[in-house]
């Protein structure tokens, strides 16, 4: 007699077996003609450049954190939506169920929104821009001198 977990174990075993068999059969059937293009990494048509194991900019972590926050929020909102719209519950409670569920959802989203507002106001979302240093030369020669020299001494007619 199989328990429910036994069925899951069978399912996993079957999945491994299926993949193994299919790959093995494909190996027997397919022609084997590798070339350099085929063996290179597929990067949506781009030429792969360098190694994938590089250090990411620290600025991405804040973005990733905020992203995960709202991703998880969405995960919670999907089951909420199915319960929120159940006609039976709404009819049984004379419609007050809908208002209750809606308020709860607004509280939940509202608190997360407050968090976003906090992060925003604190300036953690600002992308720290590198400030390029423009080289400057301290000289007494005025900038338009060269132009005037050119105008004065160039005799070539346009």
């Amino acid at each position, binding site marked *: 007699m199989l328990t429910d977990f036994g069925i899951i174990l069978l399912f996993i075993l079957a999945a491994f077996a299926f993949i193994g068999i299919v790959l093995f059969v494909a190996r027997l059937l397919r022609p084997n003609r590798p070339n350099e293009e085929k063996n290179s990494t597929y990067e949506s048509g781009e030429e792969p450049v360098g190694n994938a194991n590089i250090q990411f900019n620290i600025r991405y972590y804040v973005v990733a954190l905020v992203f995960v926050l709202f991703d998880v929020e969405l995960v919670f909102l999907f089951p909420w939506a199915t319960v929120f719209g159940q006609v039976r519950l709404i009819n049984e409670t004379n419609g007050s169920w809908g208002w209750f569920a809606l308020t709860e959802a607004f509280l939940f989203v509202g*608190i997360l929104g*407050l968090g976003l507002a*906090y992060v925003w*106001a604190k300036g953690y979302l600002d992308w720290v821009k590198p400030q390029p240093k423009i080289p400057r030369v301290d000289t007494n020669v005025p900038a338009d001198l060269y132009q005037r020299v050119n105008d004065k001494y160039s005799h070539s007619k346009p």
Partner: protein
Amino acid sequence: MFPIVLLSVFGILLLFLGFLKSRAILLPAALLFLLVSLAVNFIDWNKTYLYFNGMLLSDNLSMVFTAIVLGSAFMVVALSGSFMEDESAQPAEYYGILLFSLVGALMMIGFENLIMLFVGVEILSVAMYVLTGSDKRNLRSNEAALKYFLMGAFTTGIMLFGMALLYGATGSFTLGGIRAYAVNPQVGLSLLFYVGLLMLLIGLLFKVSAAPFHFWTPDVYDGAPTLFTAFMSTVVKTAGFAALFRLLSISFSGVYTFWWTILAIITTLTLVAGNITAVYQNSFKRMMAYSSISHAGYLLIGLAALGQQTKQAIVFYSLAYSVATIAAFGVLLLVARQRNAETITSGGSSSESFDAFNGLARQNPLLGFAMAVSMLSLAGIPLTAGFWGKFYMFSTAVERGQIWLLVVAVLMSAVGIYYYFRVIIAMYFREGATAPIRVAPFYRYVLVVATLLTIGLGIAPGLLEGLF
């Protein structure tokens, strides 16, 4: 229930108050919020309610624990005036996180469902990881936070695994459901149940720093900013023991014969490890860390000898311990700050060693007296609250007839007297060039109240009896 809702709202409010130009409003606001939460806590007094679909219980015991936790938090926050002078500190965020962590502590106190316990433990722990590392430029603070986080996350995993196994064995997450299974098993208790119980216990014992799960405590307590050490060693410990008591007395009292030996061995280990190691410390803060381990041991006696008196003993002990610890850390904060200022000019010894207290009582009689009373209370000398706390604890062991546990505990409290008195001797009998330390009025009130509470409960321990 009301404090949980209010504290959540107040925490968010405090975060946004941080946007104001002036920081002056933050401390009074945090104190006001804590007072309001403490007041609404007693709305349900003498009534028993289940809140949030049976997730949270509110009865007199949970309200008393809540009052202890909120009161300790109030005193700790009241000692936090130095944030206002520190440019790099973020007081709004610290207070916000403190209030959020209290929500977790209250969930641990009143949980009726293991899920709620887990959520509470996590809220409290994550907040503590952050606060431990809040001194961002201090290397030791960073190290402490990382250590605490890694080990804490690991034991949380063990605890969660234990809950899952318990669910597998009993088919229920509620305390009542687990109790029903343990008291009246259909075909005998399954192995999953025992393993689950042990793993759950390991997770909680780690949080209250009982040996052999105590190795994180000295480093974390030492590295964290002193104020948050005070918070950790009072609020987290009280909440942890409230949770342990609830769990063991409600769900697992049916299998007492299984876990009491394990708990008694852990108690002995904790008492010995905490007290003996504390003797060898040179830093006062590190000594307090080991002292908090040893007090976890005394509190565990009441659980290992679970009986009629345990409830009262744990409440009284955690109250006495919290008050004395906060007073001690409050004095340490002032002394360390003064010594730091002196070290810059003269280059003396560490600001948190025992030597820092040399000659303190001569110039600062109030600080010396507050520290002396709290040390006496922690050592368990009569006429202080700590004595009666130990008395109640030991009498639970007598009630159960666990004499050898009692013998170990009494021997170890004799050891404790040695290292607590080192501070008193340093303050009263050693010479030290101490200038009078300026104490802000509010700070002074907190120290005076803590000292009076310790002495008052020591003279009239019956004040709390019959409250719950």
